[in-house]
């Protein structure tokens, strides 16, 4: 089978972030970069599916030249080849990103059985690129998947729903967006990294046609002012904590 995984380069934020002076971006001068956690799992899932079923895998991203770092990371995990849709680094909205991916899939000529995406990008959180790609290609799409099994000509996909699971049986080819938890991604081996470094990356420059949703500016939400009450040190603080539980009404049935 043939699988395409779509990923996105994002800043690796751990704690509080600050913005650039024009309020258009996160100030990344002191940050590293990574891919969204859901997408890292999509890469791992693609590698596992190819290991189990045979075939070929490709990874694609839309972004500036620096995004080749994330494409190489994916190849180091075991993806066969990479495609960069090169931009000048500005933010493409979900609609224009999807249109560029659709064009690239058509141009690639390989018939993908599966297109994997993250459920949503960690930074923009648009929740729609995979679905837009599916519509444009006329493919079925399931989202938020945490278990995926290939069976005959189709797939069985599971999504968490109020403590249980919703099960979807879908024909292939299909678009599947996954969530972290579908697997535990591997660390790339040293050998994998070396191999990935030597590989060529296919490139295309998609045409910029403007965004339908226009970012005016970013804002850091106001923290609600509150004080933390230190109940004490060590186990001796337990009685005071239980007083708090009672005050909060937690023991009422």
């Amino acid at each position: 089978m043939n699988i395409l995984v779509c990923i996105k380069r994002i800043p690796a934020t751990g704690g509080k972030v600050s913005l650039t002076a024009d309020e258009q971006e996160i100030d990344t001068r002191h940050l590293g970069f990574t891919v969204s956690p859901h997408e890292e799992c999509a890469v791992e899932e693609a590698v596992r599916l190819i290991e189990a079923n045979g075939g070929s895998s490709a990874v694609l991203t839309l972004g500036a030249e620096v995004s080749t770092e994330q494409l190489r990371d994916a190849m180091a995990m075991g993806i066969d080849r990479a495609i960069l849709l090169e931009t000048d680094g500005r933010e493409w909205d979900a609609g224009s990103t999807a249109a560029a991916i659709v064009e690239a899939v058509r141009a690639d000529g390989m018939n993908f059985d599966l297109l994997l995406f993250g459920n949503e990008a960690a930074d923009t959180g648009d929740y729609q690129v995979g679905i837009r790609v599916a519509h444009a290609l006329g493919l079925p799409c399931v989202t938020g998947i945490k278990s995926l099994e290939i069976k005959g000509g189709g797939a069985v996909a599971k999504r968490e729903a109020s403590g249980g699971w919703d099960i979807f049986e879908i024909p292939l080819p299909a678009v599947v967006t996954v969530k972290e938890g579908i697997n535990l991604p591997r660390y790339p081996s040293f050998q994998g990294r070396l191999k990935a470094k030597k590989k060529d990356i296919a490139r295309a420059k998609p045409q910029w046609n403007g965004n339908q949703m226009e970012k005016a500016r970013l804002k850091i939400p106001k923290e609600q002012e509150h004080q933390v009450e230190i109940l004490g040190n060590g186990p001796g603080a337990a009685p005071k904590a239980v007083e708090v539980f009672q005050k909060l009404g937690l023991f009422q049935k």
Partner: protein
Amino acid sequence: MIIALIEHDRGKLNESSLEMLTLGRGLGLPLHAVLIGEAARPLADRAAAFGAATVHVVQHERLAEYAPEAWAQCVVELIESLKPEAVLASGTDRGNEVMAHVAAQTRLPMAANCIEIKLGNPCVVTRARWGGSLLEEARLNGSTHLLTVAPLAVEAVESPARSPTINTVTPTLDDKVFRVRVSGRVEAGAGKISLAEARVVVGGGRGVGSAEGFKPLEELAELMGGAVGCSRAVTSLGWRPHAEQVGQTGTRIAPDLYIACGVSGATQHLIGARGSKHILAINTDADAPIVAAADYAIIGDLHEVIPALCAEVKKAMA
């Protein structure tokens, strides 16, 4: 007019929809609720109590189970006939999914997880990015604005009840829109309290130290009728299943009390815990970000503090 898609599962309302209606009725236009499937008809009164003047019940024999493209097709037909200024849904898994299908089919822009909306052309929204740790002010152009409302951003408040006008519509749905539908279910384990709905969550981070280290947390959770949660570090280490992860890529919790044990408080974890009414941090480090985010803190080793807490809780409940 505004169309508001009410989320339900086989007739069981998703409460986020009430937050969405509360926001929607303040936007200055008549609010029409949409209920998809006959099983949802009894929810019309709830929708009215939260501001819907008209309720459209979409009736079709194949709408008994959730099918995202079919739901989207129903909404697209209503957009064509009613020509609303905006369509609202909640920013849940299903809400975002259906709206994205509507957006893909109509080629309209969609803004996910809005917390403020100013209608007009352009429509100006403030929406959550990075799980809500960053906000974006965005402008949308288009004939109809497709917007989902971030869960827990607005408090659901009833409006003076009135009886709604009910309109039954029957959509044309071809086979293709049922390619993807719920074809089977695994129900939640009986008696197990779901993390998202638990009144008390006892969460553990890297500071718990090992998979076995969660035993006392489990005991405390059980004593208090709560659920166990954990941080992303813990699921990455394989100590607990991903289903218990609290965070941007895990579950958003909204308990009365979240007891965070040995959790440092990375932003992506705090995003998942933000809905908690109160947070008690148990941590050896008084300077950890979780302590600053908490309402109460005990500075100390969780392996000593939690057994003491369990003993005190038992005493109090005896």
